[in-house]
């Protein structure tokens, strides 16, 4: 036996340390489809509780949309369950190719390549297109998957202060001597819900002859007038060289991601990106579902318009109730509590009130910036939002934080 007691004890020790630090993650089992109303078993073994989901990335409410389900069923019937192959051997169907074309059209780019996930897109793309002559300059708050991708790439690396354009410009000047410069940002930042200054970034990139990379996972489908993403909203369609995004959030929520952008870059990914070469791509069922999602979104902006209204209502309601929010105008609305334990206590009390919203604290967010991140969906109806608001106010009163400033909350509960 190679898994000796000594090894086991060491691992148990490590797990205990995570528990002691109060950052042990526990899953909650959902016994229903993903939607505004869900049935949850938590803790394990307890009876099911019906709660309103305020923390999913199901921004457009398409995860269980009947037309998407129907399309997925048809995909299953006509193209089968699995491919049992990576793309370049015998794992590419006509619908994979079709989805690549449809995504290209939707995002307004030159070409697209699918990846098993956006995590895979981000971990594969930099290594495939950059060399040690090049530099990647990333915003300090980019998603973890981009950080992993940067780590895997041979290019040099630097960072700039979050959304700080002066600092970015300094970095571009510092690296004038590099062959290629790639500026890297998220479109909407998932923890704060703020939006990248993409127009200014595109201008800076032009001025310093740099390429621009955008991860639009928390924007694709609903940010911008017709939901094309942050580049639409900031008026820089066609000026972003590489866009990565996921089909695991607004765009149906199942799984899969892509790299979309300049056609040479996409082609180089097809030749060299390791997660594309060595892992099966998106299953036919999911491809069929995403195709339907893009069709729905191309026909009407109804869902993203409703999402925008819902988010406005929610943000206004919380503000008027006296909560401290992170500023922004996306469906990600972080309720700031600063203290980690307070965020856990409030999350638990909300759950008792039938509201499912999770507390985030260090190291997921910076120290002293604990919060409950709420995420609004087009799947929420007015009554969901009103009930959730009522619950937030009730719990807010209990902890006496309504109308309090950041300093007052910290004075009361500590960082």
């Amino acid at each position, binding site marked *: 036996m190679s898994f000796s007691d000594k090894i086991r004890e060491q691992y148990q020790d490590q797990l205990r340390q995570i528990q002691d630090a109060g950052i042990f993650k526990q899953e909650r089992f959902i016994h229903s489809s993903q939607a505004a109303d869900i049935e949850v078993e938590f803790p394990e073994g307890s009876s099911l509780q019906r709660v309103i989901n305020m923390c999913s990335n199901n921004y457009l409410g398409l995860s269980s949309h009947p037309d998407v389900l129907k399309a997925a069923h048809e995909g299953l019937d006509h193209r089968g369950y699995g491919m049992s192959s990576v793309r370049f051997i015998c794992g590419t169907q006509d619908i994979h190719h079709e989805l690549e074309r449809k995504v290209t059209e939707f995002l307004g780019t030159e070409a697209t390549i699918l990846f098993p996930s956006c995590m895979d897109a981000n971990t594969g793309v930099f290594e495939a297109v950059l060399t040690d002559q090049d530099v990647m300059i990333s915003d*300090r708050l980019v998603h973890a998957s981009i*950080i992993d991708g*940067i780590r895997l790439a041979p290019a040099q*690396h*630097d*960072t700039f*202060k*979050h959304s700080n354009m002066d600092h970015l410009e300094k*970095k571009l000047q510092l690296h004038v001597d590099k062959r290629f410069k790639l500026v890297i940002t998220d479109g909407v930042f998932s923890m704060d819900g703020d939006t990248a200054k993409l127009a200014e970034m595109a201008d800076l990139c032009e001025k310093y002859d740099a390429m621009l990379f955008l991860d639009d996972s928390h924007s694709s489908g609903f940010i911008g007038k017709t939901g094309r993403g942050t580049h639409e909203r900031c008026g820089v369609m066609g000026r972003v060289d590489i866009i990565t995004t996921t089909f695991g959030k607004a765009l149906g929520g199942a799984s899969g991601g892509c790299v979309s952008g300049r056609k040479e870059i996409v082609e180089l990914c097809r030749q060299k990106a390791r997660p594309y070469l060595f892992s099966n791509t998106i299953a036919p069922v999911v491809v069929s579902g995403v195709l339907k999602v893009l069709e729905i979104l191309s026909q009407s902006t109804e869902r993203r318009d409703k999402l925008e209204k819902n988010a406005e209502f929610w943000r206004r309601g919380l503000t008027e109730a006296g909560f401290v929010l992170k500023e922004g105008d996306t469906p990600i609305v972080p309720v700031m509590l600063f203290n980690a334990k307070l965020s856990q206590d409030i999350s638990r009390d909300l759950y008792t009130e039938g509201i499912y919203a999770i507390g985030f604290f*260090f*190291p997921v967010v*910076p*120290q002293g910036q604990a919060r409950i991140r709420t995420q609004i969906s087009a799947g929420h109806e007015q009554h969901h939002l009103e009930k959730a608001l009522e619950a937030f106010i009730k719990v807010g009163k209990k902890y006496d934080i309504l109308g309090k400033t950041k300093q007052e909350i910290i004075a009361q509960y500590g960082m």
Partner: protein
Amino acid sequence: MEDIKDIVLEYVKEEYLEDEDEELTYETPLISGGIVDSFSMVSLKRFLETKYSISIPDEKATPEAFDSVSKIAVLVREIAG
């Protein structure tokens, strides 16, 4: 020669603090205190290497060795010889 500590302190303030009036001393924990994340440490390393014409081997550029301005100064002196 201006003290290494002051030069490094100035750089860390400008490079990492959002608000340059924030308090920062030679001993403030940089990485364990969440001011510099280990990922963004690269620019600090590059700054030291350029400024002092040294090369800091990866095994010495640990989050522990970079955890305060004082520790960084020790490291630089050690490598610069």
